């Protein structure tokens, strides 16, 4: 039931943004459409909807995670552009394993997406049972998994643990 309610709110928000500026007719049609969506595919929505009701998690997400992510994303783009345009192609690619203690689906999704958008790394495969992520690193600095974990996920993982676990 909670999951359906969360999907209803998310679908209605997207509907209202798509039919900007808001007015009462669009709101009524949106409630009908979002209600139908929530009824039909509510059980496909993400697990752990109780996370949305904790203000401290929203605080960590908006103040802690988003600025860090935006900064890393910008750095990643400049780094990638520099590597591509450099005449010698300064790359040393390889696949390393890192360990994670996150277990929830949404937490792992955010960790993998963040790793893909930070400089030089891309998540290739996830072993959820063992808690191992296989990371393609465009410039491998450390082969062993402890150092690689610290270098790649060290900034994001504690934050995501506070938000999603």
């Amino acid at each position, binding site marked *: 039931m909670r999951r359906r309610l969360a999907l209803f709110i998310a679908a209605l928000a997207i509907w209202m943004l798509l039919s900007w500026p808001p007015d009462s007719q669009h709101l009524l049609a949106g409630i009908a459409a979002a209600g139908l969506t929530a009824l039909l595919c509510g059980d496909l929505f993400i697990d752990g909807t109780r996370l949305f009701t904790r203000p401290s998690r929203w605080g960590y997400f908006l103040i802690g995670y988003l600025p860090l992510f935006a900064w890393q994303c910008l750095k990643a783009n400049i780094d990638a552009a520099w590597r591509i345009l450099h005449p010698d192609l300064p790359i040393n*690619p390889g696949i390393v394993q890192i360990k994670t203690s996150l277990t929830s689906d949404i937490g792992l999704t955010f960790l993998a997406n963040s790793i893909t958008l930070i400089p030089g790394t*891309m998540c290739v495969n996830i072993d959820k049972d063992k808690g191992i992520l296989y990371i393609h690193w465009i410039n491998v600095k450390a082969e062993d998994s402890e150092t690689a974990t610290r270098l790649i996920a060290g900034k994001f993982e504690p934050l995501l643990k506070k938000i999603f676990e």
Partner: protein
Amino acid sequence: MVIAGFIFISIGLAFNVIGCIGIIRLPDVYNRMQAATKCVTAGTCGILFGTFLVTGLNAAGAKIIICMIFILLTTPTAAHAISRAALKNGIEPFKKNGDK
């Protein structure tokens, strides 16, 4: 505001072009996915943000914000799916000859 918007659009176009060059220059599928995710995310988000600055918050502007959120969510997911398929099909990652 309009001038700032066009500056963002130009930066975004430059990043998109660099991403395309990267897809051609880099050696194997994993490295190419790196170029395709990183540069194209910034490029497309830059173009969309520039367009948002030009139009302002109206019917088009609200859709641009949704597009930016969906690009940030879907680009890494698509890259992950493609590179995972490559790994499962046994494509070995490119190794550079000699140490550097």
